[in-house]
């Protein structure tokens, strides 16, 4: 027996939720950012799963673009986190805030 589309979608929903939990409950900017990556990957899994079962190639192309976007976003995001760290010696979003979160 083979795994069905539904199983893949449930798996990606669970991974997405774990990512959301991480973003909303952690205070370390790096871990929050990693949780966002987890969310993007959950979406990628959905795309590839649909792409296989429909079948249609554009889902995989979409994943290709998401990876490019993730690379750019991670580069910029880590640069911002390093810039914050230089000022505050911390990446804790509660400590970092002068302004209200």
């Amino acid at each position, binding site marked *: 027996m083979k795994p069905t589309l539904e199983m893949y*979608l449930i798996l990606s929903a669970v991974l*997405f939720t774990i*990512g*959301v939990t991480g*973003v909303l409950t952690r205070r370390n*900017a790096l871990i*929050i*950012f990693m949780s*966002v990556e987890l*969310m*993007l990957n*959950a*979406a*990628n899994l*959905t*795309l590839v*799963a*649909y*792409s296989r079962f*429909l*079948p*249609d190639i*554009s*889902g995989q*192309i*979409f994943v290709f*673009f*998401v990876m490019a*976007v993730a690379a*750019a*976003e991670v580069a*910029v*995001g880590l*640069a*911002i*986190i390093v*810039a*914050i760290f230089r*000022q*505050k010696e911390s990446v804790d*979003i509660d400590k*970092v*805030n*002068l*302004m*209200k*979160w």
Partner: protein
Amino acid sequence: MFFNLSDLFAIAPEICLLVLAAVVLKTELFFTRKPTALQGITMAGLLVTMGVTVMTASEFPTGAFNGMIAADGFTLFLKVVLLGVALLTTLMSREYFDDAAFRHGEYYALLLLTTIGMMTLAAATDLVTLFLGVETMSVGLYVLAGLRHDRPRSSEASLKYLLLGAFASGFLLYGMALLYGSTGGKTNFAEIAAAISRFGDETPKVLLAGVGLILIGLLFKVAAFPFHFWSPDVYQGSPTPVTAFMSAGPKAAAIAATIRLMGWALPDLAAVWGPLLWVVAALTMTVGNIIAISQKDIKRMLAYSSISHAGYLLLAVLAAGDQSIRDLAASGMLFYLAAYYLMNLGAFAVAILVNRARDNGDYHLDDYQGMAAQKPMYALAMTVFMISLAGIPPTAGFFGKLFVFSAAIKAGYVWLVAIAVLNSVVSAFYYLRIVVLMYMKPQTSPAGSMRSPATAVLIGFCAVAIVVLGLIPGGIRNLANSGGSSVAIPPPTVAEVSTK
């Protein structure tokens, strides 16, 4: 053939901006680091790009690059508005960035690349282009928000924008993935609409969840309630020209993308997203206005005011859900956006000027006390901006609201328009408070001295344009109308064309 000349014409403005960004970067690297020279090159290039945009515009609404983007009047109008936003931001930048170490070339290059992202977003007719447009715009903005290394607030604004923006992108992408799958592998807007209409009354739940998640992502970019909470802090912390840019450009691009996505891809689901957006629009304008009243900082006040304006703009999106009203709603929105960027950027330029006297990074409202006595012209211009933001005739802001509200009434949203009008009355209170401060209170602080004549040009231009648009709105209204009518019906999809 994968693309032809008309496809290239459709992206001519983007190509121009890319070349311009490269030229600015190389000029800084190899020839001169003079801020004035770099600013001049950027402005000249933007003007040329505007000309190219108008000249290469196709007469007939079409799609380009296999239905990835649209080349129609709607896109044309938005592209000119977005170029205008970039141009005015460039004009006020010299006044703000005076640090000798500041690299103007990189700043302008980033501004231009972000503008390309916004244009792509405004033109997108495919989920892939929509996503890439959103991300190109956002990545540029994350960096722009954090440009002032020397101010902790700026870095914090950028971190906050990054984390929440990336979070919203996650929702947007997951929603797109579900939409893609549930429509049988469609990413093109018109093809999605066709796939959805085939479902009839039995809309799959996955599809609805996907639409909901996409809405969360887009509403975040528009800064609509309840996804608005990032914007006051980000606006306050960012360098002021960047704030001005952010409050006008991305909002325009994101709302345009929303109107096109909802109208072209999801018209059959209007019964689902309509009530949702109704509530969001009502809360967005109300919350924005009420919190704006209590603000003491002009940048925060303008941030909340821009949240409430997003609420008015959502009215246009709602009205556009009705196929027969869509052209009216879209043209009203275009006019509104054209008016909005003029008054908002003008107000921020005055804020930079007033703040120069203080130079402590605070933009306190009290700084405006007695400004009329010392700087009568700027006080007059600021009065025009505030009156226009409040939507009082005879200004462009009045007609923007009039066109949007009348389209919404035609679509049957009478109660929502009533809420919007009430909100406009409330908003007049905090806008006119600044006018009162300027004219009726004794002066407490020295007025700022201007560094760059470009700022005076900008403020004068914005004020005059707002009044002219308020007295004779006809010309721009006609352009907006032709733009609006082009978005009413999507052009035939690639598949439809090839079967003919």
